[in-house]
């Protein structure tokens, strides 16, 4: 990954003036474009920025020797909005609107990470009901996010119909989330101190309706894609990330668990009410695309279990702690991490005592997944490159932030 274009114009990075050679992006300089003894020329292919399989606007420069990828380099920043900098000019209760737009597929987790960091500085005691509501919403959001991944991963491998099945279930989830939070994706629901609003009776009904069908629907998904031999042949043994690589690149979440390390922030550093929940962490040690698929599908079932526990055992009480209207955390800093559907999503917050953060650092798990994917791409086939990029579940809104 060459981040220089984020700070400099790509044309300035070439040694020769751009007028002589046309527009040469900096990253192409490294690719040899050479001719070997057999007169075979390597081909540079730009995948993206608007390739359907890049899940956002990601450009991957692939150097191909025939069908084989020799080098891969991702170019990021197309979706850069400066969320970290903008957060320095937002009051604490308004930063959630920015966090939503980071990883836009799982907004609740993003908001939660920020809220936890702010609460850690301010030492706010969050009511128990708020914690449970956070877990409930986060897990519903996790299923919705995994369904998007499941649908698009099918598209990447060549299946089409199952995407619509995934959207059918996600629609039910977004209806629930809209009922409780007010919007379908940009929730602005979790704030420092608790959550903005209580769950509604209609939402409870919708959740019960959802829970009554989701198990059969998940079985359907398993049969539609996972049970399909063509799909299995397409993903088994493809894009293996071994544990060492995974750890070296800082992979977290399902990608890491598929490589054989059972690290889950919800279990290892419990936040919100996860220490009261009973759930398992699906794991695999194969590290290939099939393992990542199976781990995520397993996670959806565990998330359904957590939703059941939440809806049955939701404690009574307040959903928001008594906090002042304008939050002014004392001078200090805190790091809070949540297990987002993509991995450990962290927020490092520094406060200087004013009503806006002094600095907010946002750790997007997909950034590390993308780098790991980039590292394992050389040596694979071009068609597999699409599958591998799809399997690590990158969301560009989060990477570029």
């Amino acid at each position: 990954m060459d981040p220089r274009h984020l700070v400099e114009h790509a044309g300035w990075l070439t040694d020769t003036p751009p007028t002589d050679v046309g527009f040469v992006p900096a990253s192409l300089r490294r690719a040899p474009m050479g001719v070997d003894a057999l007169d075979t020329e390597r081909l540079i292919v730009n995948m993206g920025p608007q390739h359907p399989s890049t899940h956002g606007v990601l450009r991957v420069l692939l150097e191909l020797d025939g069908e084989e990828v020799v080098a891969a380099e991702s170019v990021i920043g197309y979706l850069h909005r400066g969320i970290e900098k903008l957060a320095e000019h937002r009051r604490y209760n308004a930063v959630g609107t920015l966090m939503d737009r980071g990883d836009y597929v799982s907004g609740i987790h993003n908001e939660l990470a920020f809220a936890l960091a702010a609460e850690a500085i301010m030492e706010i005691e969050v009511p128990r009901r708020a914690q449970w509501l956070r877990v409930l919403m986060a897990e519903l959001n996790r299923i919705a996010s995994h369904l998007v991944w499941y649908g698009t991963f099918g598209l990447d491998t060549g299946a089409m119909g199952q995407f619509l099945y995934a959207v059918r279930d996600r629609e039910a989830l977004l209806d629930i989330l809209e009922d409780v939070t007010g919007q379908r994706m940009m929730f602005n629901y979790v704030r420092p101190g608790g959550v903005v609003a209580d769950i509604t009776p209609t939402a409870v009904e919708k959740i019960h309706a959802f829970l009554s069908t989701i198990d059969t629907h998940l079985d359907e998904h398993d049969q539609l894609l996972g049970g399909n031999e063509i799909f299995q042949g397409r993903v088994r043994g493809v894009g293996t990330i071994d544990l060492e690589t995974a750890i070296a690149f800082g992979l977290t979440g399902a990608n890491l668990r598929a490589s054989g390390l059972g690290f889950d922030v919800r279990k290892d550093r419990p936040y919100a009410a996860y220490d009261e929940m009973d759930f398992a962490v699906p794991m695999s040690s194969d590290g290939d695309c099939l393992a990542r698929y199976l781990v995520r599908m397993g996670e959806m079932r565990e998330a359904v279990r957590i939703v059941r526990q939440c809806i049955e055992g939701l404690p009574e009480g307040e959903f928001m702690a008594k906090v002042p209207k304008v939050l002014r955390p004392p001078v200090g800093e805190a790091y809070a991490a949540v297990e987002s559907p993509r991995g450990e999503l962290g927020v490092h917050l520094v406060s200087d005592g004013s009503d806006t953060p002094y600095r907010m650092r946002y750790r997007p798990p997909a950034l590390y997944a993308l780098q790991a994917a980039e590292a394992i791409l050389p040596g694979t086939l071009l068609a597999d490159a699409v599958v591998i990029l799809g399997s690590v579940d990158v969301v560009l809104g989060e990477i570029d932030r």
Partner: protein
Amino acid sequence: MSVWGTGILNGMRISFRNLLRGPITVKYPHEKVELPERSRWAVEIVRDEDGSHRCTACLACERACPDYIIRIDVTTGEDRSKHIDRWGYQIGACMMCGLCVEACPFDAIRMGHDYELARFRPEELDVALLTDTPAAGPKRKAADTPADRPERTPVQEAAQAAPESEQDAPREPEHD
């Protein structure tokens, strides 16, 4: 592993089963799904039965908006009464976060349910929700507003409880 091909047959069986059930989509715009009560779309002014508004021109919403898109032009008369010249709202830049509604101590605005926000001309995106109208008197505190007002969230309660000094002086928008 089972016999090769059973997975594919299974998939076809599922597709066939779904062929037999009714549609789960609606034919928008001929049919519309009902929005949940809390849906947040364009901001609107709350009107009492007699058509009067409750805005006291306290500018709390203007300060709360993260996008700086509310602009209320107020003239203060000699007797310190306030007159709203224009309650400006740039609908195209609004992200429907609801922070302005939470900030309003008088429940003068709410998040509406109008989601068909496409306009033909860009000027139409800059709307005036109130023009040339006297501000509601501060005596119309939320306490004596009609009972049908929406339930308050603790955020709003806290906003009410907070003394005026808790609220900041108007912030200069950083972007200009």
